[in-house]
């Protein structure tokens, strides 16, 4: 039997939480108490634990999705359920006209990324594994408090408030109160964690004449130097497959199209919004796609935000000589773009674990050729 895991109505959380980390994938075997995913509310990070053993048969949410109490998160079943889920026909073909079943097919009005993707079944209560609520366990481990030393206030199981109370009681060394702090939004916290994976990089820079770009810009004023470099990179990535790969812990899943991310400075942190298969797009189309992504991100729609092999940082608005762009795992390279009198400068940062120094240098040298002589992009 497939058991559905839904977002619990945790007492101390606000209505809406963000999925910050998916810890399992479809097919993973899980046991009771395993953390399946983490969600973050205004106040805390909540681990969602499995209340059953079996296999993850389906995952209904993505990272960054907003969920509220009752949102269907994932499904856990036995091996047979997993098989069934795998073999589920991709989708019934164009059905013949007859109304085969009378069952209604209610689906959420909002697109998948914004709400529960399927009718939420009667919420399954998140069971208490051990004798503490999952968030209590997490909090206790964060604060270094032994759960065994805490008495549940309801006499049954330990809640986060019990842990907090216990923490109050434990005398701690006086910490000087921070004088002033910048409040960080939930999204920024989530993003900060993204950056925790350290990517060792090396850098190569080129300075190119902007003549070819200027000619293009006369005809297509919507195309910025950054769009132009993105176009060049997308063509280059067809030549260097590594620029289409993600560094997924040693595995290098390759995509056919050149997906190029553009760093967008959103209110609560930088995200990279992706232009898919940019090699198929002309400069104008790339400009348009970026513009569209930008509007979406500005509206809080992060559907274009996802890990991407190559990201581009636009520093053309600043009087700086170069911009060393950070590589965000699982991406493999990032490029910072600056402008000067008659020139476009690009600084490439490459993940040393998957890109050799000579390859990085060769990429940058070819990139300059592309930028200065766009005819080469056609070859």
């Amino acid at each position: 039997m497939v058991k559905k895991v839904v977002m619990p109505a945790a007492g101390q959380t606000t209505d809406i939480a963000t999925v910050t980390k998916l810890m399992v994938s479809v097919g993973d075997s899980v046991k009771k108490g395993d953390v399946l995913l983490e969600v973050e509310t205004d106040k805390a990070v909540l681990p969602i634990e499995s209340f059953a053993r079996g296999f993850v048969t389906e995952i209904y949410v993505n990272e960054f999705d907003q969920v509220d109490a009752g949102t269907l998160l994932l499904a856990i079943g036995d091996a047979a359920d997993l098989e069934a889920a795998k073999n589920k026909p991709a989708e019934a073909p164009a059905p013949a006209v007859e109304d085969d079943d009378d069952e209604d097919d209610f689906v959420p009005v909002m697109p998948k990324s914004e709400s529960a993707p399927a009718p939420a079944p009667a919420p399954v209560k998140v069971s208490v594994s051990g004798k503490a609520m999952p968030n209590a366990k997490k909090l206790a481990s964060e604060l270094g408090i032994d759960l065994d030393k805490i008495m549940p206030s309801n006499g049954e199981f330990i809640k986060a408030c019990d842990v907090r109370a216990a923490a109050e009681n434990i005398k701690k060394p006086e910490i000087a109160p921070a004088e002033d702090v910048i409040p960080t939004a939930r999204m920024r916290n989530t993003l900060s964690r993204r950056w925790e994976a350290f990517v060792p990089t090396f850098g190569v820079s080129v300075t190119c004449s902007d003549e070819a770009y200027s000619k293009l810009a006369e005809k297509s004023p919507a195309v910025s130097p950054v769009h132009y470099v993105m176009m060049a990179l997308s063509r280059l990535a067809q030549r260097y497959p590594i620029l289409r790969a993600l560094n997924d812990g040693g595995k290098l899943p390759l995509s056919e199209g050149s997906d190029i991310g553009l760093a967008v400075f959103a209110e609560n942190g930088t995200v990279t919004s992706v232009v898919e298969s940019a090699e198929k797009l002309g400069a104008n189309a790339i400009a348009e796609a970026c513009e569209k992504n930008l509007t979406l991100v500005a509206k809080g729609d992060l559907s274009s935000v996802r890990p991407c092999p190559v990201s581009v940082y636009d520093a053309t608005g600043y009087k700086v000589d170069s911009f060393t762009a950070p590589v965000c795992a699982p991406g493999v390279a990032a490029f910072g773009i600056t402008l000067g009198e008659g020139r476009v400068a690009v600084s490439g940062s490459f993940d040393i674990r998957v890109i050799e120094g000579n390859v990085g240098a060769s990429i940058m040298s070819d990139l300059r050729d592309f930028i200065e002589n766009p005819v080469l992009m056609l070859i």
Partner: protein
Amino acid sequence: MKSFELIIIGGGPGGYTAALAAARAGKRVCLFEKDSLGGTCLNVGCIPTKYLLDRANALEKIRSMTEEGVLRGAGEYSFKRVMRGKAPIIEKLTSGIASMLRSAKAEVVRGTASFKNANTVVCNGEEYSAGDVIIATGSSAIKLPFPGSEYCIDSTAALSLTKLPKKLCIIGGGVIGLEFASAFSAFGSDVTVIEMMDSILPREEKSAVDLLVRSLTAKGIKIKCSVKVESVEKIEGIYTVRTSSGNIDADCVISAAGRRANTEGLALENAGITPEKNGTVAVNEYLETKIPHIYAIGDVIGGYMLAHAAYAEAEVAVSNILGNKKELDHRIMPRCVYTIPPLAAVGVTSENGALGRFDYRGNGFAVAEGESGCVFAVMDRETKRTVGFTVVGAAAPEMIAAASIAVERGYTQDDWRALTVAHPSLSETLREAALSVKF
């Protein structure tokens, strides 16, 4: 043999309008309908698609209000229930037509009619004769001749889908294809439209079409122009549409690549009429065929394949039958595309005159409704009179009625200035656009 004064073949917008007009003028009329009164328009065309688009529009509105934070949670909807809601509406309208025909004392015969000779038709084995005949047999979707075209469904079948396709591919970026694209995209399908020409709606105001394409694309509809379908294959329940520029996978493929006049089975040759190569029945400006007392109206004569064109043609044909000579005048022909947002146009585009435009952003009502769009007014450079309008944005099909009057009357800027338009209303943009025309 039963004898009448006027025989009408086909009970769609053309046929039933003609029957009502002639019967009310005292003619003894017999109308033949092989399927359902109301024709394509009521049963599988204008009305059911507009019903679906109304529901689709509502879903879009709910989405935007949820994003705005006004609604907390958008709830759930059922595609099946939406589809089921169509039938009672169609039923109401078709039975309305039946009762109007009854009270006008027009006889309705159910069955397929075919010509025996120029004055006699046969239906259900019985013969009917009349001095005048109107052919109003309408049109049906054409099947494109590529391998695998049998896997495509037409607009009629698409209106009876009971499951929402996840990935929908629509062949043909004409009015019908685009309307289905908007509806199904709003219902949640991932929609790709394939158009053979280098633009959709190539005859409409270019900037307006660009704006429409941008809006549709922003809703997630993929529109691929200058792309030719080579074949459709079915592998493990998934359809692959092979085109001149790559493959598109879909779980449903709708072919909306045009319509062809219905003349098969009519035995036109017995009346002395040969259909044109493209299947249409040729008529003169009085809507007479080669045989003077046989008229043809509606989709079967080609041209604008629109219900209101059929209505207008019905009025002209009946007027001529009643002896009041009248020529067909299609200069003022509103053309509407009920996409989300819709596009509507009347008269000519800015290729034939001076252009003025007004953006919805400058209109209080549009801003209040959260709608975007633009109005394009065209005036003749010499006569300085209004000769065309295009509206892209909410309520365009409603606004085009007022624009049609202005084109019909040849409004000058002074006329527009003298016109008071209710505030706030989207129609204010018509006046603003007209007044912004620079010669």
